[in-house]
């Protein structure tokens, strides 16, 4: 059976329950053997405006939106016209005729009295469930499959509400069947439940933190990081962790450092603006050599910028953030699987090298939900560095060592004292103004960078190094870039991918090995100036021929990346 690659768009106003339709449909198809990718596009408001969600159902793993959609479900008919350009010629539009507006288009229109059916079978607020049932009918899929997802989605609101929603969905389904309408593409059940996981990037980051044994999460609400904080809060009791909502981001980073100083694995999560406020604390972590993980969610700036949109424009900022110089690691996972393992790696690096580690993600990665195979738990459980033997003599927090890492000891250990200082300090941890001690301490801290580099995951090179054209990216562009390059290779272009997750300390050797023999290097990134290109030149001395750049707050579409690479590959400068 030819592979299925079906795109669907659900649009409407904030508060009309678009997520319910997308999540429920995804829930159905994930459990009938498909790979599903869901991305959301929301406005910075609670009600009204124009929100939409893209769902992609495919037989092969997918990491980006479908280029074209075969079905458009408009809970507010007025908004349908905004998406017609993305609809395939044979795609169809599902609207509620009672909305009183009908998009002028050649596409087939399926009119379903959503609101009326909702009122008859439940309440008007359940119009979205009617649309869900109708959509499933158009896809000629078994309605029974809706039972479990609807139950999961509405369990929190009581069984009666779940049942009412199911009834509404059923009504929508029956209405479409009665009308005999179907979508060109039939998406049957192809396999028993393949047992795949289906989660967002934010949930994977939270899960990774709990798997790494985080003990304290301190945070302040800021999109797109809030879902991570809420995931940890929801599971705090079960996982035995403290999740503290604090007065501001400065308190968040300092509370995490206080907990880490006292021996508890700690993290905070925020977005670019909150990260600015954490810069002084980041520098404190560097000077006091206190392990902490800081999750930074990128969104378009400057300043408040576009609060619910996506960007990759804080890379250079994260590398220089915080006054003074100190080692740090920056890991930029592309999807839930990378996010889970990168978070565990982040905690291990932070603890073993007593250093701040930044897990850099963006709104697109955080909010996109996708199917992934499985998440193996870390084998060697994170042994906190402190387990080594107690020092005989007086403990010295900053004792010089070859690796630059001093033995860590929890304050409160009988007979020992721990001094930690944000001033320059001697090995005991007391204030010093000596030039010699300063040089020794700067070099001691700097030595840790070598050890950290060894712990990093090398960049992904596909299909192999040294292709004529090499496309370089980091973080969440991975899905679109891989699919675009695969498409171009299909057309005979000699092009490969270098995708970086662990981006600092910069993997100079593996980047050079991958790019040295290539004739042209192109970067793909969601920012204005091409920060990856500039970083390539700064650290590896490699000058990119051009960049495919997008900075309008939206993620790349596969076709757009493919076209951009092709244009640059033929020598037209980017």
């Amino acid at each position, binding site marked *: 059976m030819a592979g299925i690659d079906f795109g669907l768009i659900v649009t409407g106003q904030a508060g009309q329950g678009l997520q319910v339709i997308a999540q429920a449909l995804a829930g159905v198809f994930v459990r009938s053997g498909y790979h599903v990718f869901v991305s959301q596009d929301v406005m*910075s408001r*609670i009600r*009204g405006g124009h929100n939409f969600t893209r769902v992609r159902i495919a037989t092969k793993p997918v990491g980006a939106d479908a280029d074209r959609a075969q079905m458009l479900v408009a809970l507010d008919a007025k908004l349908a016209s905004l998406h017609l350009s993305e609809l395939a010629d044979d795609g169809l539009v599902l609207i509620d005729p009672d909305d009183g507006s009908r998009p002028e288009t050649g596409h087939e229109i399926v009119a379903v009295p959503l609101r009326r059916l909702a009122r008859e079978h439940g309440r008007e607020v359940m119009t979205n469930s009617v649309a869900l049932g109708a959509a499933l009918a158009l896809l000629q899929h078994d309605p029974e499959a809706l039972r479990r997802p609807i139950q999961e989605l509405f369990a929190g609101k009581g069984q009666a509400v779940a049942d009412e929603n199911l009834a509404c969905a059923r009504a929508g389904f029956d209405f479409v069947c009665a009308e005999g309408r179907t979508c060109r593409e039939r998406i049957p059940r192809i396999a028993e439940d393949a047992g795949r996981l289906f989660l967002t990037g934010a949930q994977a980051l939270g899960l990774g933190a709990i798997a790494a044994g985080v003990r304290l999460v301190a945070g302040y609400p800021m*999109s797109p990081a809030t879902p991570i904080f809420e995931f940890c*809060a929801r599971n705090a009791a079960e996982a035995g962790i403290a999740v503290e909502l604090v007065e*501001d981001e400065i308190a968040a980073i300092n509370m995490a450092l206080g907990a880490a100083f006292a021996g508890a694995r700690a993290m905070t999560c925020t977005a670019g603006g909150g990260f600015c406020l954490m810069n002084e604390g980041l520098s404190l972590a560097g000077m006091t050599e206190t392990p902490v993980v800081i999750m930074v969610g990128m969104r378009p700036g400057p300043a408040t910028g576009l609060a619910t949109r996506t960007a990759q424009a804080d890379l250079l900022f994260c590398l220089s953030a915080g006054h003074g110089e100190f080692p740090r690691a920056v890991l930029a996972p592309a999807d839930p699987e990378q996010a889970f393992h990168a978070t565990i790696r982040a905690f291990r690096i932070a603890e073993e090298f007593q250093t701040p580690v930044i897990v850099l993600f963006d709104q697109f990665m955080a909010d996109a939900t996708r199917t992934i195979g499985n998440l193996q738990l870390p084998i060697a459980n994170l042994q906190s560095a402190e387990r080594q033997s107690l020092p005989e003599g007086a403990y010295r927090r900053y004792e010089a060592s070859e690796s630059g890492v001093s033995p860590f000891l929890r304050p409160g250990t009988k007979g020992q004292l721990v001094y930690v200082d944000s001033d320059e300090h001697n090995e005991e941890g007391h204030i010093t103004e000596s030039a010699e001690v300063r040089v020794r301490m700067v070099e001691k801290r700097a030595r840790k960078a070598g050890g950290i580099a060894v712990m990093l995951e090398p960049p992904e090179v596909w299909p192999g190094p040294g292709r004529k054209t090499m496309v370089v990216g980091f973080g969440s562009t991975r899905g679109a870039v891989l699919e675009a390059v695969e498409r171009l290779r299909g057309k005979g272009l000699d092009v490969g991918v270098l995708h970086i997750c662990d981006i600092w300390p910069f993997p100079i050797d593996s980047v050079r090995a991958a790019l040295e023999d290539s004739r042209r290097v192109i970067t793909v990134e969601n920012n204005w100036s091409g920060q990856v290109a500039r970083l390539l030149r700064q650290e590896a001395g490699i000058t990119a021929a051009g960049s495919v750049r997008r900075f309008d707050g939206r993620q790349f579409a596969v076709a757009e990346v493919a076209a951009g690479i092709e244009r640059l590959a033929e020598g037209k400068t980017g």
Partner: protein
Amino acid sequence: MLTAEYWSRAGENAWCPGCGNFGILSALKQALAELQLEPWRVCIVSGIGQAGKLPHYVKCNFLHGLHGRALPTAIGVKLANPGLKVIAVGGDGDMYGEGGGALLHAFRRNPEIACFVHNNGVYGLTKGQASPTSAAGFRTRATPEGTALPGFNPLAAGIAMSGTFVARGFAGDREGLTRLMVLALKHKGFGFIDILQPCVTYNKVNTHKWYQERVFDIGTRQHDPLDIERALERAREWPEADPEGRIPLGLFYSAQRPSYDEQLPVLRQGAPVEARPDPRKVEQAIEEFRQHGRD
């Protein structure tokens, strides 16, 4: 001459239908109309959150700045150009969470600006986390077991910092709120109003009805805003203490002291924005470093 309607700005409103913000917006427009101010003389500085969007719906100058920073920004505007009528606006998370420190020092400094806080007891725009004024036990996605902390009392803080105009209004009591706003906008100093504002989407506890049944105007109870200890006791009255408890509205406290603008010597020479650089004075300042010749 200028009606409340005159102060409206065209354009789509992003608030949820039934939101308490609409009450505050119309009270503000009514107050501005009553004071016969001109739109071009008014400047609203706001933080980030649903309340921060208010100036987009008012015909006036505005700087929609950073979360929690409306007050220092507003003070900067006012001291640079005292001719402007400056109003700082923000939500409870914005003013009492991120910007709590700045609020304490604004009470102390007592600049001639009005400060209206939309207090809905929740973080709205980020979809329902507990805020500093959420009552203990308030369940949200960020505090699934209910917040462990008692709500922050902004009025008690304002009184303790010898604020010169510490008041509370209610978004549902448009007429009373307008009256308080007129007083605050005319006040020669820091005119602070904590405005109780129902959030229809995320705060199912402190609803419009919940407030309607509890609020009363302390003006009707011979409350003397000069008696600091009495004001502090009033400020502590909240249903959290006893469920049948009432919620006092009105002007709680008004310490009698001059505003910062009146006392800052520099401002007596006119608006700093108007100050022209005087080359002669600059040369004199440079000459102060000249080492005199041999005696």
